[in-house]
């Protein structure tokens, strides 16, 4: 049976071979350049790459590669309350100091605003506030204050916040610097109209 030469097929076939080689060597920039070289046939080339890789089957990673990847932020399986509490303790930070630094980072200077930061942070660290809803500004600020934790906090926002550990469950009733009766009074009191800064803080925390 005769074989019909087709310049475009040869070109795409060569690009496929080169792209697979770039994939094998982990050269992402080369992969992207080669895919773009296919012009209008880029998507078809990507699909052929996917098909080739699918036919080859899964890789067999080394234990060293597995262990190195497993400790990166995306694989962190801890909840935010665990991460924040551990990181705060590791930094030697008492909660009032962290709250003051957080308010400063967020540009909150009024006493009512700072108090609302304290309340919202308390809710996060005790697992009462969903980290998915808080703003990037708060994640950035916490990441800086807690010493380069930005990537970890960002990667773990979707982790479930419960069930909480016994120590954190205990702290749900109040930190050691918070009077439980004061909290109870606050719950019993009719809600006051929030101030401008309180509303701003609530917005930053996704409340």
């Amino acid at each position, binding site marked *: 049976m005769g074989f019909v030469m087709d310049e475009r097929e040869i070109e795409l076939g060569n690009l496929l071979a080169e792209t697979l080689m770039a994939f094998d060597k982990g050269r992402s920039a080369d992969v992207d350049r080669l895919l773009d070289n296919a012009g209008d046939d880029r998507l078809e080339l990507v699909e052929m790459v996917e098909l080739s890789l699918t*036919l080859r089957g899964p890789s067999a990673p080394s234990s060293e590669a597995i262990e190195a990847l497993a400790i990166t932020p995306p694989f962190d*399986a801890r909840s935010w309350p665990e991460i924040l509490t551990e990181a705060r303790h590791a930094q030697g930070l008492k909660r009032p100091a962290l709250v003051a630094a957080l308010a400063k980072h967020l540009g909150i200077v009024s006493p009512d605003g700072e108090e609302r930061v304290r309340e919202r942070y308390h809710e996060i660290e005790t697992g009462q506030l969903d980290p998915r809803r808080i703003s990037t500004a708060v994640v950035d600020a916490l990441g800086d204050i807690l010493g380069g934790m930005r990537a970890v906090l960002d990667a773990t926002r979707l982790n479930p916040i419960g069930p909480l550990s016994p120590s954190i469950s205990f702290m749900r009733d109040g930190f050691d610097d918070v009077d439980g009766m004061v909290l109870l009074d606050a719950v019993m009191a009719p809600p006051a109209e929030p101030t401008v800064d309180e509303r701003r803080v609530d917005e930053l925390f996704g409340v």
Partner: protein
Amino acid sequence: MADPSVYDADLVRRARVAYTAGDLRTAQNLAAELWLRYEKQARAISRKRARGDEAEEVLGHLQLRFIKWVYFRQDEPRNMIGLLNQMASYAYGDVQRHEASQPVTVEEIEDYRQPHTDRTISTILDRAEIDQLMSVLSNRERLIIERDLADVPDVEVAAELEIEPNNLHQIRWRALKRMREAAAQQEWGS
């Protein structure tokens, strides 16, 4: 060739058991192994959704969704490539939301419960199904794909067939195209 889906299912099951037991280090190692098994495919899949830097962002969100799925979901894995394709469309949405400063959510992960019904090449599960697909190829095409699967260098395959590497690449391209078309048209697999 052993069915990779059996090995994958075992990794997922053990990761979830470890997570539930609070053995996070083991859970993280198992999830990392599963991801590395399919990282190349995930890189390709992310490039079906976006280009360049944006494709890398899609890959990041895809990885995050994949890991959360391993740790926190209950459904059994059947086909990792199909699952990654499904997640990639949501990962692209994550990137769009991130760029718009909207919170990233996992509500759509509920959709992963739906079985992957798309009869495309991404539903390949094992060697038997690859063999079934290869039945549409000529002898020469089949040999080229077989040698590729056996990791034989192109220059050696070209020499064996007494053709130029360029021709080898063209034939392989054509063979893969036929396999893909066959996968889309035929009622193969289960």
